[in-house]
């Protein structure tokens, strides 16, 4: 079963540490306490190092990793979907980023 890691318990995303295929179940362990984990069914093919959503995220919501905002969702993201530049944008460096 593919694996992943979550930096912090508040996080909205898990980083997969293997290549993941759509339909795979991913065991995401918490870095702060690796014996605790959640299992997420992947909705996409997700390459090693990329992020999978741990919950449904609404368009306009901030996305947390390291329990800190890493950007804003620019479309609705369903639990299990690939989170990347197609649905997540920076909050920084000017208003051109907030489109």
């Amino acid at each position, binding site marked *: 079963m593919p694996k992943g890691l979550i930096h912090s318990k508040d996080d909205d995303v898990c980083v997969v*540490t293997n290549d993941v295929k759509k339909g795979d179940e991913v065991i995401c362990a918490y870095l702060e306490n690796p014996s605790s984990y959640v299992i997420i069914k992947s909705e996409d093919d997700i390459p090693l*190092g990329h992020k999978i959503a741990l919950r449904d995220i609404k368009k306009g919501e901030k996305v947390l990793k390291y329990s800190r905002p890493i950007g804003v969702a620019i479309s609705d993201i369903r639990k299990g979907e690939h989170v990347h530049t197609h649905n997540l944008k*920076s909050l920084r460096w000017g208003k051109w980023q907030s489109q």
Partner: protein
Amino acid sequence: MAVTIKGYIRENGAVGIRNHVLILPLDDLSNSAAVGVSKLIRGTTVIPHPYGRLQFGRDLDLFFHILAGTGANPNVAGVIIIGIEENWANKVADEIAKTGKPVEVFPIEGYGDLRTIERASRKALEMVQDASEKQRTEVDISSIVMSIKCGESDTTSGLASNPAVGVVVDRMVDQGATVMFGETSELTGAEDIVADKMATPELREKFMKIYKEYVDIIQREGVDLLGSQPTQGNIKGGLSTIEEKALGNIQKLGHRKVNCVLDYLDPLNKSKDGGTLCFVNTSSAGAEAVTLFAAKGSVIHLFTTGQGNVVGHPIIPVIKITANPKTASQMSEHIDVDVSDLLDLKISLEEAGERIYQYMLRVMNGRLTRAEVLQHDEFSPIKLYISA
């Protein structure tokens, strides 16, 4: 028990771990003659670059700072400077001479390339023979000045390789060594965390001023930086935004207070008692940052990578570390330390840090890094603006 390494103690007491005789072109026009000397004289290290003509103001000061600092670096035994004209070359030579090491200037005007190559080669020959007699001696690890930076990062950097370097940074600072970090723009989204690490309100203020000035320059261009910062490689590796990249980046800073903040032209003053963790204003481009760290006195660099940055430096060993198992196998000739087993939680963070630390000690004692063997000799002075 005090940890020691075998290094070269220079005339001014600074400790190096390499013993280069440097052929330093003062300007782009002098590259040919400088390379000519390096081809004739075995044991010399030449660092061609595209700058040094018609620069002015702060940009010129930074250029001199980088050239003089590179020559003054304790990994260098002696320096030959070749310049089209003598005046600027002498300025750099005078700075390097303050360290007490041998330095000689050879101007091209009035001689031409061929006679300059001959004159400089005769001197370089002597310097190489003299340098070959320098011995490594046992010195306390507190005398080491080092630097850290990541490049072509991906999410494995923030998960594993960067926090493992953080373990090494804590250990080096606790042993009284000096560690420099930078990457000013790449702290965006985590700059408040770095500001909170500052040991005094004055340092915090200086850091935030430098940070804001840098980001203002970027914002003035009014462009979307996606693809540049994060880079295409970062994005391929799963990093989506500058904030995510920055939060991964700062994992390598460890847990000690930052007790030194240096703008471009500020010299490093090694603290007499206790370790130093020092922020240096740098670009986030790998070769530019390593070049500036070396110019400020770093003698060894820890470089973490996710997707596989191949950077090296002509006079300081750059140790490449990755936690990405694909990069570790696909680009193995570039990777000195593989900590991808940390990504699978097969080893602890402490164990990964220990692996890097032990490897670093071997490199300090003389083992060549892969970048050194592969001749990755990137020397990239930062240029602040146009020439006149």
